[in-house]
């Protein structure tokens, strides 16, 4: 479950924000916001993607570095809202 979810979100980030990058470079702990990969608009795009795909709603205070700075924390947050991750 977690692996499928992680892969789907990773695929979205790779395609949208890291085109051409070797997928192995993006790990579950790679810093996304503090590492300059997601800026404010990119973060909102990622949130919109996840809200639509997993039928979840992010609270305004969750759209920040604390909650979305790496794949691990993103997946954890999505699963807390939609335990099936589907």
């Amino acid at each position, binding site marked *: 479950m977690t692996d499928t979810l992680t892969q789907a979100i990773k695929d979205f980030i790779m395609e949208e924000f*890291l085109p*051409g*990058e*070797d997928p192995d*470079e*993006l790990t579950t702990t*790679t*810093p996304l916001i*503090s*590492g*300059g*990969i997601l*800026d*404010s*608009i990119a973060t*909102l795009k990622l949130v*919109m993607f996840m809200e639509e795909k997993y039928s979840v709603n992010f609270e*305004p*205070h969750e*759209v*920040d570095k604390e909650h979305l700075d790496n794949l691990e924390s993103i997946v954890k947050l999505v699963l807390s809202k939609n335990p099936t991750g589907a």
Partner: protein
Amino acid sequence: MSTAAYLHERFIASARQSAQAVAVVEPGKGSITYGELDSLSDRLRDRLTLLGVCRGDRVGIFLRKSVDAVAALLGTLKAGAAYVPVDPGAPAARGAYILHNCAVKVVIVEAALADKLGAELAGLGAMPAMIVVAEERAGGSGLRTALDAADEQAMAPTTLSIHNQPQDLAYILYTSGSTGQPKGVMLSHENAVTFVDWCSETFAPTAADRFSSHAPFHFDLSILDIHVCLKHGATLVLVGEEIGKDAPRLAQLIADERISIWYSAPSILALLAQFGNLARHDYSALRQVLFAGEVFPVKHLRALCELLPKPRYCNLYGPTETNVCTWYEVPLPIPAERSTPYPIGKVCSHLRACVLNEEGATVARGSEGELAISGPGVMQGYWALPEQTARGFFNADDGTAWYRTGDIVSEAEDACYTYLGRRDRMVKRRGYRVELGEIEAGLYRHAKIKEAAVLAFADEQAGVSITAFLSSHEEKRPSLIEIKRFCAENLPLYMIPDRFVWFDSLPKTSTDKIDYQRLKETC
């Protein structure tokens, strides 16, 4: 409403008139009244004086946006000095460079940032005194606690009156510099108060207004937020950096805090229109929406005006060197067929404008040329850069000094100016001035980068997108993730390129310089 010649005296007049009124709000955290802010900034003035700060000195402010930071800049002005606000989110090395460059006597710094900044300053051989403020304290208690602790060591006596002159510097704002290092724009009290008075005349604020403070304090938009608000005894609502670009939270905050005068870069307003869910909230208090710093794509402006049709919308234009120098009120509704951006408008009443050709002669109305500005709002120059200062001005035969903005404009029959582009390599991104050369200089610091060239392109979503063209010394190039992280650690966020394109070697002109034209054609 005070017409005093100094920014801080205007605040003091408001404090005397309405000591109990709320001066500054930190949403969800705390607030401070005019009387309390006056007392707190008096205490800081006394401490700064004890530390040797005199009229004409500089004091660095390395704090996140907070009541503490507002008190810090007021206390600095009361001590007769100029404040130098530094982006606490930017790499500490950049902050240290700025503070060392203008030789601040004291730095007021947040505890979490103090060690790193201190180490960077020490590396430059600079040892200013530091007032360390504990973070996560609201309503000015961080600064108050720091002053209490300092008073226990040595009580600061009340400072005797300080006699400024209108030409004394009030603040220095550092902007992107083409040589790879930021440069300090020096603004005097006279520069600032003439701008503030123009705002009073144009936007007619009252003590009942609630101003947004969205721009960081190192950004020139903050001058309107802070000093116009405090002059009129109104309330300043601080929008923290953590939610500054978070459209849903920002939308909620504007409604909940009943902001009546909003001022930000257009990119933030475009985000609000697209992602803010504005229909969910009540914006009945909002009466003026001001924007500046970059071109507002009409598509997004129209969307915003349709969602929020009640306020007055004004496009303010001006470089840090003059603050706002032209303005334009957008006529509503915006026709569906309009796609070209609105003009930057007419020159503000406290300034004069003209359009010059390359030889410095005035061009005929309707012709393209460089916008030049003169008057009491124009800066004193760049800190410690006499040659750049001299190059920035054109001296007319009658002795008038005209600041050359570098912006290419044309003037229409109705005396409104239309922005057409730049004459150099400076672009505006998210409201910030970005010298592409500074990004290149930053990229060259990466050990594996052999060549770096940076170009800006128009972008419908972001206004401007930035592409870096790179070549490497090594066969194995840095990964995209590595290079983005390097940028995040070495450049302010708004300078990080959107795209990185690698070459074995960048194309060259016949004189062996990087061929920017050919690079442009590759995109």
